[in-house]
């Protein structure tokens, strides 16, 4: 992706999200955009992890779910105070479990949303990468973990709300999150978080770490023999991906007002990867547009042809991998290059090597 094209994409996005959409969409549609942007936040992490580091994770739902559930615990406690959360009462859990207690505090909740999933991701992935497990095998491990996580959440009904998840939130630190005004505020919080995450990702990609990740993706051996602990760099990318997914999950709980095990599982995780594939896995800004477009398509199709969504997303994935391996961003870069003739194609070297 050319630099000019990237800046143009970001400026367009800012105008679209800050000036146009909030003024033309009704509160219901605006809230849907917030939801799409949640997936954009997760997608930016996947670009870093998959596009740059070459590490395919089919378990981003785990970290999305962790962030979502941690946030939901706080929101649920605030909504049901001073009583026990309703689902605990229904499952005859009589006292609040000790590990729910700290989630009365918003500060603690926010810190744990940042720290817990990141720490888990780092420890887990560093151990796996040190053993030189990578590629398809790593993807299968993450997939298995996502499945395990779903089973765990469904099974522990008294603590997690089981298959229904945690729902029925009312306020966030006193501010209503179900009123139209509250949702409007949350929309701007969402846009702000998206730009913060994009800023972080761009800084990482532009730093030496970004180049080392590309180098590891293409020739991990060579990087080792340049004196780098490649497992550490891959674990770093995985950790940042997990952090972004967790932030996304926490925002989802706020925006949508619920979190359920289906959002944690394998299907949800794979859908996240498809969002990024559509936008372009090497492009941070592309992933954001991909999430917006696919999210919007999902709403439209689910509203009009409720049974068709899965067929559509499956077909889309096949078409993208076959005809547009660098996604929409690749398409735009190609169109841009046709006019600015002779410019180097972003993936020229790579295609030459295949």
């Amino acid at each position, binding site marked *: 992706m050319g630099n000019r094209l990237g800046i143009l994409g970001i400026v367009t996005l800012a105008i679209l999200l800050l000036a146009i959409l909030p003024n033309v969409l009704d509160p219901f549609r605006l809230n849907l955009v917030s939801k799409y942007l949640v997936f954009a936040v997760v997608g930016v992490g996947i670009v870093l992890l998959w596009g740059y580091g070459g590490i395919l994770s089919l378990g981003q739902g785990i970290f999305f779910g962790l962030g979502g559930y941690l946030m939901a615990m706080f929101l649920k406690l605030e909504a049901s105070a001073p009583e026990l959360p309703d689902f605990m009462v229904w499952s005859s859990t009589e006292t609040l479990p000790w590990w729910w207690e700290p989630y009365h505090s918003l500060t603690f909740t926010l810190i744990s949303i940042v720290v817990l999933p990141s720490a888990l991701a780092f420890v887990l992935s560093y151990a796996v990468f040190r053993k030189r497990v990578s590629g398809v095998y790593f993807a299968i491990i993450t997939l298995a973990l996502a499945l395990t996580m779903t089973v765990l959440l469904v099974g522990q009904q008294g603590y997690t709300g089981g298959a229904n998840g945690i729902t029925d939130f009312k306020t966030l630190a006193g501010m209503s999150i179900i009123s139209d005004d509250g949702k409007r505020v949350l929309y701007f919080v969402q846009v702000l978080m998206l730009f913060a995450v994009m800023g972080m990702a761009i800084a990482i990609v532009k730093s030496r770490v970004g180049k080392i990740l590309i180098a590891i993706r293409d020739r991990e051996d060579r990087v080792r023999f340049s004196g780098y602990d490649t497992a550490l760099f891959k674990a770093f990318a995985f950790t940042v991906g997990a952090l972004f997914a967790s932030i996304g999950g926490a925002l989802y709980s706020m925006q949508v007002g619920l979190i359920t095990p289906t959002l944690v599982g394998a299907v949800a995780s794979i859908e996240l990867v498809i969002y990024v594939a559509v936008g372009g896995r090497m492009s941070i800004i592309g992933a954001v547009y991909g999430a917006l477009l696919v999210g919007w398509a999902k709403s439209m199709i689910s509203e009009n042809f409720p049974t068709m969504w899965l067929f559509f997303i499956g077909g889309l994935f096949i078409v993208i991998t076959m005809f547009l391996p660098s996604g929409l961003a690749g398409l735009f870069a190609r169109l841009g290059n046709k006019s600015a003739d002779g410019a*180097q194609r972003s993936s020229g070297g790579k295609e*030459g090597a295949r």
Partner: protein
Amino acid sequence: MSAIILSVKELTVSFDGFKAVDGLSLVVERNELRCVIGPNGAGKTTLLDMVCGKTKPTQGVITFKDLELTRMSEYKITRAGVGRKFQNPSVYEDLTVLENLEISYPKQRGVVGSLFFRRTAELRLRIDEVADQVYLRDYLDNKAGLLSHGQKQWLEIGMLLMQDPELLLLDEPVAGMSPREREQTAELLKRIAPGRCLMVIEHDMAFVKMIAHKVTVLHQGRLLAEGSMEEIQKDERVIDVYLGH
């Protein structure tokens, strides 16, 4: 300080019972440009793989200066001052020549250090200097994937030079090069040898003649002969198994 940089003692590695290298011992000194020759399957590449940590030996000791390498991980061996060039040029094709050299610069190789890494004037100078040495000064902004085969070989040697290693292990550095490029490579290797120690695997005997101080001949994982080029060329056993055909 002793002049011995690398010492290999009774080195053996077996893959499923097949001994690729079998009880091999040798010593390489500072300033030396050593060539390793031998027929296919003699264990040349495996020997380099063990020195740089890619393959772990079954038995034996590898000492680099006073470090025992056999239990160290690859990146630590590299940091200690051993550089490895692979048989197929391995460069980062999606990065520019400049970025390829920059990544190989041996400072701030942790994650945090890399996040805050800045290209200093001093580093830029060093990159230019190395690029000059490996004949790639005019290609710094090209994607490495677009270089010719020979240029990729040079780039990989340049990447090693950025690390400023004391021991360079080069696996067939002139494979796929034109005669002119071979000469340039010979000059390059002779120029960088002083102060370091080079071990070069090569099949091209004319090239070996151009550069070698001393030649080691391997056969079926064992040391067959060792000496100057003339001695080797006269050696009956070497003619039998290798030079004769």
